[in-house]
């Protein structure tokens, strides 16, 4: 275990960590954030949505959700292990585990190992599972290929029994989030949080140049042309970050024409990737790359670079994920007026596509010595009480709907007017997950080829289709 402990991270802002300077800025920002709350109503008006707004309760609010007692408790001092890959979640997880210990099971401790990133954790988990190790008891997995791998290899337990015993617990999740984690008809993992991909924008810069939030692609192009004419890059888009990022525009287009179900079927080898809708998605990626809307060389831009470009006013918009909200806030000067909007409708009369997905999800090692205790701990982390505490300081969306009172309680410490806006977007989002590893690889490479102008949209989709056919009949069903 000592080796694992050595890899453990201290609390971090995100996977990249925080410099002292950033921490200082964050502290200053927290102090400056209170007045921003006053502007929350104005921001909400732009995004719409179905989630309740925080109530205007005064005084010290509390988490009123029920923290259910477990059905099973440890018979003596027991430690269960949990391997995850997002350092900045550790404090939230630790807090809930300690409350669980205090309130319900004094014998049970949770040992969290936070790997520096998904790749490192996946390698560690793979080695442990291949060695039939009972450690870790709880495993964090990504939706998509990772969840498929651990479930189809019989390495993890599903939630059928847990949900049958506690239907309320299941009802606490967004159905579309659970759908992403349903492999071969069973739910193999549960989300700790959910998140969206949206466009952050510099409201001050927009106002200065008389620009409105774009509702359609044409609006966006006009905004881009105006900004370019003024020497401001329109969108900082960190397509060089990792394999998921170059696919954002593609997912966006398919979400915008409601073809994400078709993409899922193609992913599972049931439909061809060369259908007109999926090729149109590739054409959209190519069009965006050539439109002058992106900051130069998107494949050479990583998240911190894009944040810097946006924070220094060199670009007016930033296309990124909700998980970057705090990193962005930390980099912004105190007077920066930050707003968000969903990507504009990609076709005339279409809806605004919001890419949403589950973030870190939790499952139980099939060889765990304490599977029941592990499930109880997952229920504590992701259940009605836990989800409010978990997301309270992270600013990521919870794994299911929460009450207006709960949001007000969270806002006491969160103090970020954008948070409720993100909450409204989650249930409407389109998914951004590909389940077949070889297909995901082909799509990633294809999107890079489109952005660099090396291939035509049709050729890209043909190569994705070839990769899909090479995989053959899938050994799993998803959703």
């Amino acid at each position, binding site marked *: 275990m000592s080796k694992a402990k050595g890899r453990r991270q201290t609390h971090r802002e995100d996977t990249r960590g925080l410099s002292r300077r950033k921490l200082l800025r964050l502290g200053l920002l927290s102090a400056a954030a209170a007045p921003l709350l006053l502007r929350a109503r104005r921001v909400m008006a732009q995004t719409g949505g179905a989630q309740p707004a925080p109530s205007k309760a005064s005084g010290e609010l509390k988490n009123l959700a029920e923290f259910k007692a477990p059905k099973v408790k440890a018979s003596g001092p027991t430690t269960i292990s949990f391997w995850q890959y997002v350092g900045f979640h550790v404090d939230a997880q630790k807090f809930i585990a300690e409350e669980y210990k205090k309130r319900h099971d004094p014998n049970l401790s949770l040992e969290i190992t936070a790997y520096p990133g998904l790749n490192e954790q996946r390698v560690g988990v793979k080695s442990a599972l291949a060695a039939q190790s009972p450690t870790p008891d709880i495993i964090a997995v990504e939706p998509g290929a990772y969840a498929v791998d651990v479930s189809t290899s019989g390495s993890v337990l599903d939630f059928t029994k847990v949900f049958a015993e506690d239907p309320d617990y299941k009802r606490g999740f967004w159905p579309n989030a659970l759908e992403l984690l349903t492999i071969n008809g069973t739910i193999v993992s549960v989300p700790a949080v959910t998140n969206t991909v949206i466009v952050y924008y510099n409201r001050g810069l927009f106002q200065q140049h008389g620009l409105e939030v774009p509702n359609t692609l044409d609006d966006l192009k006009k905004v881009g042309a105006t900004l370019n004419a003024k020497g401001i890059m329109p969108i900082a888009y960190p397509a060089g970050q990792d394999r998921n990022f170059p696919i954002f525009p593609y997912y966006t287009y398919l979400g915008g024409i409601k073809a994400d179900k078709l993409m899922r079927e193609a992913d599972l080898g049931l439909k061809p990737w060369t259908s007109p809708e999926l090729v149109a998605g590739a054409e959209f990626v190519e069009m965006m790359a050539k439109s002058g809307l992106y900051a130069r*060389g998107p494949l050479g831009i990583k998240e911190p670079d894009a944040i810097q470009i946006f924070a220094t006013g060199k670009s007016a918009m930033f296309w990124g994920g909700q998980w970057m909200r705090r990193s962005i806030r930390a980099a912004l000067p105190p007077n920066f007026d930050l707003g968000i909007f969903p990507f504009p409708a990609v076709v005339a009369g279409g809806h605004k596509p919001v890419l949403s997905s589950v973030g870190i999800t939790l499952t139980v090692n099939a060889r765990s010595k304490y599977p029941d205790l592990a499930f109880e701990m997952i229920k504590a982390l992701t259940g009605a009480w836990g989800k409010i505490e978990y997301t309270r300081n992270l600013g990521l969306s919870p794994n299911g709907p929460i009450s207006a009172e709960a949001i007000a309680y969270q806002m006491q410490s969160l103090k970020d007017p954008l948070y409720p806006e993100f909450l409204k977007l989650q249930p409407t989002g389109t998914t951004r997950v590909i389940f077949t590893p070889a297909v995901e690889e082909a799509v990633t490479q294809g999107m890079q080829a489109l952005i660099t102008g090396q291939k035509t949209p049709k050729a890209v989709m043909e190569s994705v289709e070839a990769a899909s056919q090479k995989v053959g009949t899938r050994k799993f069903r998803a959703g």
Partner: protein
Amino acid sequence: MLSIAARRRWRRHAAGYAFAGPALVILAAFLLYPIGYSVWLSFHEWEGYTPRWGPFVGLENYRALAGDEVFWRATLNSIVFVVVRTPLEVGLGFLLALLLNRRLVARSLLRTLFFVPVVMSLIVVTIIFQRVFEPNTGLLNTFLRAVGLGAWAHPWLGDPATALPAVIAVSVWKNVGFSLVILLAGLQSLPQDVVEAARVDGANAWQLTLRVITPLMRPILALTALLSIIGGLKVFDLVFIMTRGGPTYSTEVLATLLYREAFELNHMGIASAVAVILVALVLSIARIQTFVLDESREGGKA
């Protein structure tokens, strides 16, 4: 019963075996066994999540690699990486060593400065250079624009044409100090009487360097080159952190391909086949190099 001679022989070697034993056990457990395991695994199909290997597939994984465009791209990139990096690293290292072997002002400071990148964390170096190469606010493009060469500003890591050269440049920057130190130590251990004799005979600095010092330095230059070649062939972290082999496989090398096959595509058998090819490549080059070195030594003696 052992004969007296055998017992004597055993007594004579026992201490040697006792000292070498633990090291041999460690070597066998952590080097030979994994290599053997990889070779065996390369003949199987395995997704890597269960202890049960898939079926024995013979040479199928090697056949699959032979028909895989990405494998050939990665092999070519690995070769380009080595062919470009090694002469730059060793050549620059030698030039700097020659320079720093002279009596210069701040010689010690310069030696330290050139060695600093070697001791810097690779992660730190790659993150710094990602920012240097960033297309919009990166140091390099900002500098080019500032000196009126804005037309040369480029998305260095985002363009398949320039991504590999950019990564090689970082590798050279990081490692040239290592070559420098080895070569400097070599220069300082050269027989001074030979150098002095050449000077007395009227050799100028150029002739001295080319005709006397360089031939004497040949074994050390060969060793430095060998280390650079092996380092270049197995490069992983630098590429993985900077570009993850992209864009469009333009910086994919054998080690990143191995990782991709093993941990992203779950083709452990194919990944093992890549590992076997990589080891074979490194061993062959090392063997050729030592052979050439031995030959040149023999030639020197003759």
